[in-house]
């Protein structure tokens, strides 16, 4: 098979946009997670101290915040479930994600909305674009666009996994019908 050629990037990492990928908007995610819904309503919650304690005991994690962004999904007057929105900040990355919960607070789906390398992965558009000149893919490249793949050692998603566990507990404590 054809051997791949790695081209070293000699790029000055000046102030430039960080690597970011936008996967879904909140509207796209809620529609994807509840395709049968006819209406979505803001159902953000303000947790009581008791509910926060309950989340901590159910998840084994700090409740972190009293205010949570929640959207309820409806089909006419029937509650289909909730979408809980959250962001996690890791050592290297910033991730926005959405968790869909059934009315009984069971997890239905998790979707990443956006990913951003918090410490940069700073790539200067013009300089590294040159590496692909003459290639068909070059036209489609843009910093911050969502089509560049990154290969490297695996970055753990523990922060998201913990976040989903916390949201499952939030569902039990504050959203379960």
């Amino acid at each position, binding site marked *: *098979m*054809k*051997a*791949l*050629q*790695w*081209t*070293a*990037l000699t*790029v000055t*990492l000046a102030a430039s946009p960080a*690597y970011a*990928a936008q*996967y*879904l908007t909140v509207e796209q995610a809620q529609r*994807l997670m509840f395709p049968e819904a006819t209406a979505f309503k803001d159902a953000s919650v303000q947790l009581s101290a008791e509910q926060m304690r309950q989340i901590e005991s159910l998840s084994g994690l700090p409740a972190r915040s009293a205010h949570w962004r929640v959207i309820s999904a409806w089909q006419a007057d029937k509650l289909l479930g909730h979408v809980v929105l959250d962001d996690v900040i890791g050592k*290297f990355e910033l*991730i926005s*994600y959405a968790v869909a919960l059934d009315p009984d607070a069971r997890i239905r789906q*998790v*979707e*990443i909305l956006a*990913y951003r*390398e918090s*410490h*940069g*992965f*700073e*790539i200067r558009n013009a300089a*590294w674009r040159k*590496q*692909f000149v003459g*290639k*068909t*893919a070059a036209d*489609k*490249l843009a910093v911050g666009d*969502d*089509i*560049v*793949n*990154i*290969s*490297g*050692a*695996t*970055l*753990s*998603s*523990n922060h*998201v*996994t913990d976040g*989903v566990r916390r949201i499952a507990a939030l569902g039990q404590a504050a959203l379960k019908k």
Partner: protein
Amino acid sequence: MMRRAQPWLGTLVEVTIADATDAPASDLAFSRAFNAIATVHQLMSFHDPESDVSRINRAAHGADIVVDAHTARVLGAALALWSQSEGVFNPLCASKLVEWDYLPAPGGPLPAWATPASALELEGCRVIKHAPAWIDLGGIAKGYAVDVAAAALAASGVRSGCVNAGGDLLAFGDHDWPVLLRDPAHPCAPGYATEVRDCALATSAIYFSRKEHKGCPRSALLHGREGRPVLRAGSVSVSAPSCMMADALTKVVAATGDVHHPALEKHGATAYIV
């Protein structure tokens, strides 16, 4: 170009479809691809007590365990590579990773390190355990999950797509996919660029997993025959027709430092160390 991401396999898995297609068709293809990833995750997770891997690890000496065909395929490939690499790739490495706090203890006494390959016998979907052993398919299952997700995309009619599980990726179809490689000296910046077309590419390095444990330097990559951590600072990438083999072969090259290791040619693979 449409892209979605979900958390699986301990990392973020990105699925990209390059076809110009309508939303219902792509939604179905995405959902089949992520379901395929979820299946592999559930079968081969070291952390999930219900997984095939955990059932094998908990099983007593002499036990006969029936596993899913996916698990049998990955375990079969892992055991074959163990022999092809003369033990450098070792799926029975979990006892060291538990000892170094990279994996949680699955229960029971810590098996001895030098477990021979004969500890596990695979016959179709039956695993016979001849000696106490803990398996970890973490070095190969992520690549396999990428392969089955890409196959699910293709089976859904996608002509050009890419699945990337935290850096282990497979691209298919009539499209050059740009790939940036993390600079091992500055992993938050890209050091190298390339393109892939109709092949898999996997990378292993220690920059995210290196740590001091009880005063000793450790990493999540280990030399399977010698039981010592790989501490080389560079990054190993392997391209191969399948992501499962690309993923597993990065471990062989990382441990040996040999970009001409005979196991590479056997699997139509090429390795790069940067």
